[in-house]
């Protein structure tokens, strides 16, 4: 039988993204969606920085970009700047876009390696327009012709996720989602099947549904507390287990990128919004106390703090089954990976997309859940490897934490990737997963993991042709850059005067 009742437990970013995504698809198909949230339970407000995929989510919902940016106080994001990762004093930008362009079907970075290994001083970043734009604080939307250098890149946003949730709540409510205020105190399970039949709120209200989406955060009220699904602990690979976050006044012009700075026992984020800057220190409490972490964070803010520092506790990993019986966990209830590459919101989005495609019936065939879990596991595994890369592609050994990573035996999937890169600049590719080859190139070169050789086919063209081609790409990138306005000016112009 067709599912007619969905209950989403928990508001916040994941709850309202799920409500909006599902109501957009199922509103006309006779499916009722109820969202239960309590004003008394705070939201974590994961990942204020996003990946370009978020634009597809908004587009599917028909959300106007200008309106969205005004309401969520969003800025444009061209990538992430990583400071002090490869070694103290280093910095590089991981952009949303390719480096250069392939020559005779061979990735550009091989030609760059050829230049480098033959003694030319060439910066790979100079062949990436989005990096150049980010470095000079500039931004414009990519044009329609993605063959042009100034148009061949992706972008994302940095926004206030609380305001995003609010916007999506309004969207969801106009698309038929009913919101119920309250805290779930009891879950009713079918004694035979174990399926959850209803949740009971503090005031005795009983909410029945066929399908439950657990967006209750780390606690996993349904997926874990009720169904005891179990958690796959990845602390061995990604041991940071706490964060402290604070907002402060922005200083200087608004920048079109996020910054992630490596620290003694973790790393610190800086996310510029229109009206403030979000900051946080993600750390491993084995090597730094909460007080010290807070102190370090507060002493490195660029402007006066606007809020009290807020403490977060987590354990990296993922739920053993993100979909178990009639509960699908989306957001922190499904798993947590530190927001080093802004993947939190992306994994929420992947969860929603997969759920829509594999939307079950009331008999909950095992094959639906199995396929959902297979896809999400792959997503999580591949993000994990990419995050871990940041900690291990480094010369740092200046603190206990960095020495821990130096001694780590890597997952084979990651070790193979790094070996293939180091020996010849070869990238192990995959189709299913968020980070494409240019992202791997960005982090590995940015953190000084340089190959010993390159694809021999890159020797086919003569030195002169190579120099001409690379010069041309650089020239075109710089020309496009000259046409690009300052990010702040572009943004103000684009979204118009504030409506409030």
């Amino acid at each position: 039988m067709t599912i007619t009742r969905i209950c989403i437990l928990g508001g916040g970013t994941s709850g309202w993204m799920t409500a909006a995504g599902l109501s957009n698809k199922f509103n006309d198909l006779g499916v009722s969606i109820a969202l239960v949230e309590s004003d008394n339970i705070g939201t974590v407000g994961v990942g204020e920085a996003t990946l370009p995929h978020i634009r597809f989510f908004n587009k599917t919902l028909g959300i106007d970009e200008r309106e969205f940016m005004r309401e969520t106080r969003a800025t444009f994001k061209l990538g992430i700047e990583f400071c002090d990762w490869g070694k103290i004093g280093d910095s590089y930008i991981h952009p949303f876009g390719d480096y250069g362009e392939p020559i005779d079907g061979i990735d550009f970075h091989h030609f760059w390696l050829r230049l480098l290994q033959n003694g030319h001083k060439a910066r790979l970043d100079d062949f990436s327009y989005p990096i150049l734009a980010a470095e000079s604080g500039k931004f414009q939307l990519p044009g329609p012709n993605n063959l042009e250098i100034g148009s061949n890149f992706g972008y994302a946003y940095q926004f206030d996720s609380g305001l995003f949730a609010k916007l999506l709540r309004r969207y969801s409510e106009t698309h038929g989602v009913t919101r119920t205020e309250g805290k779930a105190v009891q879950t009713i399970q079918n004694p035979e099947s174990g399926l959850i039949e209803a949740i009971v709120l503090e005031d005795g209200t009983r909410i029945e549904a066929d399908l439950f989406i657990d967006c209750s955060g780390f606690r996993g009220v349904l997926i874990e507390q009720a169904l005891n699904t179990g958690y796959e602990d990845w602390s061995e690979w990604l041991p940071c287990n706490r964060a402290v976050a604070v907002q402060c006044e922005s200083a200087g012009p608004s920048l079109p990128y996020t910054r992630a700075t490596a620290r003694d026992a973790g790393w610190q984020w800086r996310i510029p919004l229109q009206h403030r800057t979000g900051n946080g220190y993600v750390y491993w409490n084995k090597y730094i106390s909460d007080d010290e972490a807070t102190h370090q964070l507060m002493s490195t803010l660029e402007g006066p703090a606007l809020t009290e520092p807020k403490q977060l506790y987590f354990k990296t990993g993922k739920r053993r089954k993100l979909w178990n019986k009639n509960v699908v966990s989306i957001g922190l209830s499904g798993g947590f990976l530190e927001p080093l590459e802004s993947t939190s919101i992306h994994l929420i989005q992947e969860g929603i997309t997969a759920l829509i495609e594999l939307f079950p019936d009331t008999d909950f065939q095992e094959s639906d859940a199995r396929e959902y879990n297979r896809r999400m596991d792959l997503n999580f595994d591949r993000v994990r490897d990419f995050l871990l890369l940041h900690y291990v592609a480094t010369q740092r050994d200046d603190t206990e934490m960095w020495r821990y990573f130096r001694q780590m035996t890597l997952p084979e999937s990651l070790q193979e990737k790094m070996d293939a890169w180091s020996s010849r600049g070869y990238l192990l590719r995959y189709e299913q997963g968020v980070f494409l080859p240019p992202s791997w190139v960005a982090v590995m070169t940015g953190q000084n993991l340089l190959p010993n050789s390159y694809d021999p086919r890159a020797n086919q063209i003569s030195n002169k042709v190579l120099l001409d081609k690379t010069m041309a790409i650089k020239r075109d990138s710089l020309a496009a850059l000259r046409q690009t306005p300052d990010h702040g000016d572009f943004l103000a112009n684009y979204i118009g005067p504030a409506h409030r």
Partner: protein
Amino acid sequence: MSLSPINKIAVFGDGLAGLFAVAKLAEILPDGIQLIFVESQETRQTDILFGTVTPPSTYDFLLGLGIQEPKVLTSTNTSFSLGTHYKKWGPDKRNWIQSFHRPLPVYNGVAFHHYLMRLEQVSPGNSELESYIMSVQAARRGVFAHPPEAKNIPLADVAYGYHFLPEQWCQIVSAKISDSNIERIKSDITSVARHGDKIDSVTLSNGQIIAADFFVNALGAMSKLTHPDAESLGATKVMRADNMFTAYEKIEGVCRVLTGTESGWTSTTPLQDGLDHLSITDLSAEAENSAGKNGQRSIEFSPCRLKKPWLGNCLVLGHGAAIIEPLTTAPILLLQRDIERLVELIPVSNDMRVESREYNRRFNDDYDHADLFTGAFFAAKSDSQSAYWNSPTVDCSNLKLLNKITQFESRGINVQYDYEPFSAEDWTMLHFGMGRSTERYDPLANSISEDLLNDRLSQMRTAIEIMARKMPPHHIYMAGLKKYLKDKHG
């Protein structure tokens, strides 16, 4: 900066695999690397196992060897292929055309076949897929024309491969190689000097000693170059391929016709000047030995593959690395992918551990994924007594395959793994062809009214039919094209 860069690559074998490899390497190797081609004559006889149909990607593959389509059409008896017409296939005697086609339309974010499945639930038996596939309709009529650049007509959705004879392609590739300055030696191998996994040199029957940094062994299954301890998978079945050619006046049809038999299958492939007949027989399923008709070439083979085709400094390519039954385009498709994988991994030094590990990983992924596709031709309940149908050479209980079939039958979804050789369209056509029906379809396919849906589908069918009626028969198109090419290029 690499410690000892490689200077010399030697390729052995004069069959299609060796020739393809040499032609490709000749195109892409930089000046610093010398290429030697040793044309040992022991390999061409198994080339019929590459089959007679190529996938659409062969057009680009040949271009990558410096061979253009006009050359292929004017120098060999190659014809166009829109796919394979399977007849009397399997226990249910299925009949369908597995054609080459660009992705089917997606309406409102929902894959096309979900709409057909919706109609199927309203009026069962009324939702065949073939009317909506231009290349199938053209194949049914035996007509052909090149797909145009313009995207708004049904013909643009057609993709095509070739019908070909490996021996004729060997000739054009060999001629192409002669244009470049590759050192060619016609001699057989006498002995191989190796220590551990590494080959130091190869002594030839003409007395010459070939020392190289990297060896490509395309000598087939019995090659002396293959490491004696190389492990292989499969090789449990013995099959026989019988092949013969009958001439005709004009091309008949534009797809291969492949018919299931009690102990295998038999096929006819329309080439420019005649029909190629290829039969595959599972010898353990055959009641009595019927081989040896007049004019037939027959070879016995065991489908199998090496676990690690690249060991040390030697890569095995072609039938020494893998033999698969030419039921689909897989044999030639995978050979192309093997060669493309090789050129991405031309060794940069004498330490080839990274290259061999990655080559072998991708090789196994590719062959596993192709086996899933082949497996889907057999994954049906069979009450046949024949070993061919009851225990196919591929593993039909493979979890990845079960996942694919379960998902399709349960809700019409094509589960995709990384870089599969066969596309979602290939899979959809195969599932429909095998008569797999789906329990459910995407509920979003309900978002348009049935009338509107029927209108749309009817328009699509009509447009395809009109186009198919306008297209010329294969032989007329071919004659016109060849005349044009002759007038233009002489």
